[in-house]
């Protein structure tokens, strides 16, 4: 194959090895996805472990305290956390299964992996955007309560 002396130099970062069949998805890109599967599996295990310990923590908190209504706010927050953890566990699990399918060479797996990526980042983004107003609200309420308490104190 003749070398073109006028061809621009390749960048080390953004240019990859060309794919086998032309201008499609580079083989290296698919390899990167497949190689990330063990780490996503680890995230699934850690999330599962975190879920189990959170449930145990909630049960212990309910058992140790004399009245279940002792700290209702904390328990509600823990329950919300559990629901979010379960939701993310299913997302990670599904994404991991798509990665395994991609590794086995099943057709359509790449599209499913990409869709899984979008779903994960979108869920995280929506969660973050919905948490921001709640945090601002909590800060405002906290400041107002603090000011009221200062006014009442002698």
């Amino acid at each position, binding site marked *: 194959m003749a070398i073109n002396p006028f061809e621009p130099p390749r960048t080390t970062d953004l240019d990859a090895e060309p794919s086998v069949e032309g201008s499609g998805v580079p083989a290296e890109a698919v390899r*990167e996805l497949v190689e990330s599967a063990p780490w996503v599996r680890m995230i699934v295990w850690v999330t599962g472990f975190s879920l189990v310990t959170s449930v145990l923590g909630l049960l212990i908190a309910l058992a140790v305290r004399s009245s279940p209504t002792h700290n209702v706010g904390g328990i509600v927050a823990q329950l919300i956390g559990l629901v979010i953890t379960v939701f993310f566990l299913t997302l990670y699990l599904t994404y991991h299964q798509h990665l395994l399918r*991609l590794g086995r060479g099943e057709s359509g797996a*790449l599209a499913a992996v990409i869709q899984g*990526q979008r779903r994960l*980042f979108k869920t995280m983004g929506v969660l973050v955007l919905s948490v921001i107003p709640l945090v601002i609200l909590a800060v405002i309420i906290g400041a107002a309560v603090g000011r009221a308490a200062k006014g009442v104190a002698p």
Partner: protein
Amino acid sequence: VSPAENGAELPVESVAHLASAARWARVLAWFAFICAGFLLLGAAGMAAMPSDPKLPQGTSIGSFVIGLLILIPFAALLWGYSGALRAFAGGRPAALVTAFRRLRTYWVTLAIAYAISVVFAVWTMIGTVFHAIPSK
């Protein structure tokens, strides 16, 4: 490497999904950078008046620094992933490799950070439970 996917053209739907993933990753990166900025302000505040009685108990400059050390790599990786996907959308198919490589690094970082935080949380929970059980 999957022989079925190697060299395959991406469907239009998948390209749209990648563009959406890039947008949301950019949102998350901005959020992480803003949080890092607040932590930096907190660390600076702590350095200026370390013995302020108004500060919550247990607050130290170290906690701000740990927060920064966790947040900044995540923000940088998400930003890089999003940027590479934008380059891919701009007509550089090879940028997909960079995007997925950064995503793999993101998963590695997340897995390690998450494992450490869960171990720490369990340790704290055990301590709390032992503390809460009244001694006979």
